[in-house]
């Protein structure tokens, strides 16, 4: 039982909710200015970087994992092919921006429908292929993506093995006083020094601006999926996940809902890819192997299957854990030679196994248990229509 009980719909709850939102915004805002240069934490002579570029990369993963939540978490279709759509989105955006000078966000007009349609198409086999088999096929799909990019016919668009470089940047508009805000933050006593020193360079301004825009884009995606989940189609896909037969008997079209959720998931994968390439400035086929798809599944499971906040945690985990693992060069008692291998994969693999045993609901389920000790949110009472007879 929580120490504090809040009932939805009451003013106390509204305050609680808005406090949460403001806190989140504050974190995003502070992170932008604190980590615009490479922020780092040092532990035992190891430097762990938390630069803004990495956070933006994490955002791109969050959106891709959000897509996986829709198809795997909520609809129960085990897809190991999300990397395919992530890569597709990345390359499409890169091509449109680099070769046709489109603004980054305009590319979504192409990426979203294209990935959506491709997702629908890949959802069609999923109507017949189930469970493990679907996982196999989608893994195969993810595996062929890098070789597709190398195809001669696509070479003019993808630039083959060299990677598609995009040098278009997201620059803040003139009226945006990023510099002023930064200077203001630096003047705050005691904590000011954590916000760097002096004016922001162009590179820094651009990093902050990209981060803000992508965070907003991701927030929109999360809000849309959240709307979906608590609505008629969202309940329908979850019903399909939990029991197909009774879903069908209650008039829920299985084919329609499965393919649509594949479409939505793939479109989100494409959006993630666009964020990724906009931050990185290059799309290269080696980034979009089946390993990426497996990482997305890792993020999904580690964060928490079937939860939106799980996607946030999952994105952070797969963006930072491998990086930090390879930044760990000194650990007492561990030979140095061991630490300069692929320790990230090792930690993710072992972490995945350990979580499956101890916290099958992912990190988020642990967080929720802790939170439930403090705050308990009660549902808003629903008024009964006057005609209904209440039986005791």
């Amino acid at each position, binding site marked *: 039982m929580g120490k504090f009980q809040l009932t939805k719909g009451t003013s106390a709850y509204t305050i609680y909710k808005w406090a949460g939102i403001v806190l989140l915004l504050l974190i995003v805002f502070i992170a932008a200015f604190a980590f615009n240069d490479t922020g780092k934490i040092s532990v035992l002579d190891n430097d762990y970087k938390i630069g803004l570029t990495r956070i933006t990369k994490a955002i791109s993963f969050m959106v891709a994992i959000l897509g996986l939540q829709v198809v795997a978490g909520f609809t129960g279709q085990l897809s190991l092919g999300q990397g395919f759509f992530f890569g597709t989105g990345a390359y499409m955006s890169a091509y449109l921006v680099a070769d046709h000078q489109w603004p980054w966000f305009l590319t979504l007009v192409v990426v979203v429908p294209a990935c959506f349609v491709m997702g629908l198409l890949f959802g069609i086999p999923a109507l*017949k292929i189930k469970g493990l088999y679907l996982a*196999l096929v989608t893994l195969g799909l993810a595996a062929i993506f890098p070789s597709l990019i190398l195809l001669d016919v696509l070479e003019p668009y993808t630039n083959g093995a060299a990677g598609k470089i995009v040098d278009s940047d997201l620059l803040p508009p003139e009226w945006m006083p990023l510099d002023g805000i930064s200077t203001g933050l630096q003047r705050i006593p005691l904590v000011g020094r954590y916000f760097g020193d002096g004016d922001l360079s162009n590179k820094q301004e651009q990093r902050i601006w990209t981060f803000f825009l992508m965070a907003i884009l991701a927030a929109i995606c999360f809000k849309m999926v959240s709307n979906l989940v608590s609505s008629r189609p969202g309940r329908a896909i979850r019903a399909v996940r939990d029991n197909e037969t009774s879903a069908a008997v209650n008039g829920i079209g299985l084919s329609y809902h499965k393919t649509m959720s594949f479409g939505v998931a793939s479109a989100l994968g494409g959006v993630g890819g666009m964020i990724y390439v906009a931050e990185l400035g290059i799309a290269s086929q080696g980034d979009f192997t089946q390993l990426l798809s*497996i990482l997305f599944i890792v993020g999904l499971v580690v964060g928490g299957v079937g939860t939106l906040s799980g996607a946030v945690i999952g994105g952070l985990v797969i963006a930072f854990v491998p990086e930090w693992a390879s930044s760990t060069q000194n650990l007492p008692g561990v030979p140095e030679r061991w630490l300069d291998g692929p320790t990230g994969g090792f930690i993710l693999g072992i972490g995945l196994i350990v979580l*499956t045993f101890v916290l099958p609901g992912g990190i988020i389920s642990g967080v929720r248990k802790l939170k439930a000790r403090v705050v308990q949110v009660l549902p808003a009472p629903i008024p009964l229509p006057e005609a209904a007879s209440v039986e005791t």
Partner: protein
Amino acid sequence: MDLFLQRIFDGLSNGATYALLAMALVMIFKATTLINFAQGEFAMFGGFIVLVLATEQGIPMWGAVVLGMLISAVLAAVIERTLIRPFDPADHLPLVIITLGLFLAINAIAGIVWRFDPRAFPELFPSGKAFNIAGATLSWYTIFTLITILVVAGGLTLLLNKTKIGLAFRAVSSNLESSELAGIKVGPTLQFGWAIAAAVGTLGVAVFVASPFRQLEPQVMVTGLIFAVSAAALGGLDSLGGAILGGLAIGLVQSIAVPYLGVPTELSLLAAVVVLLLVLLFKPSGLFGTPQVERV
């Protein structure tokens, strides 16, 4: 024509590896209807054990292979006991997650221990060409890989049909509940399947990298798994004979599709994925598998 024949020979020798790995997958699928996503990594790891035994411990090559197969079997048995058995076999999701975790972890461990530089593998078979047939070269390597899969298939058949544990394994594969009611302990029986699968997979990788044109490195089976899965699905996931034919067929499709259907080399994997997709869509039980009956 000569080139065509040559491609068939090459396809067969590739296919032999897929066949061995597919047999490994089938051993586990038969009993549990689970696909071990880490099967390729198990095999790669076994390959490194063989390499270490042969090059660093100076054990004769075939001795190293047999010892390596034994060690991987024991490792797999331990993994089955500790990581797989605690979960309900009917609930696939946690098990898939565990095998994906194993995939990442084993791959990383191999990378940490042995690094990613490709290593030459000692010769397993006599080198050079055996015959020239109509202008195509049939190498000893190809001949011996094919002999190997026949020997393995024969060995597995004997093991399953002539031993008590083999009988128990077939019983559990056929009807788990009735097997328990006959006094068979399901856990150790499935463990036997995992051990055999790992041993066969190790042999598969050893044979694969024993080719003079290949080397051993941690990524060697990352796409190999997909070829093997396609092979196993084509043969019918619960048929060992089907796995062999499926493996050879995938090898042939790969080596013939590339030059003759104008599929670029990079896309040979696509051929395997397309086969997998078509099989699952139109004949989910594969060519030789048992059809699954679904009841409401």
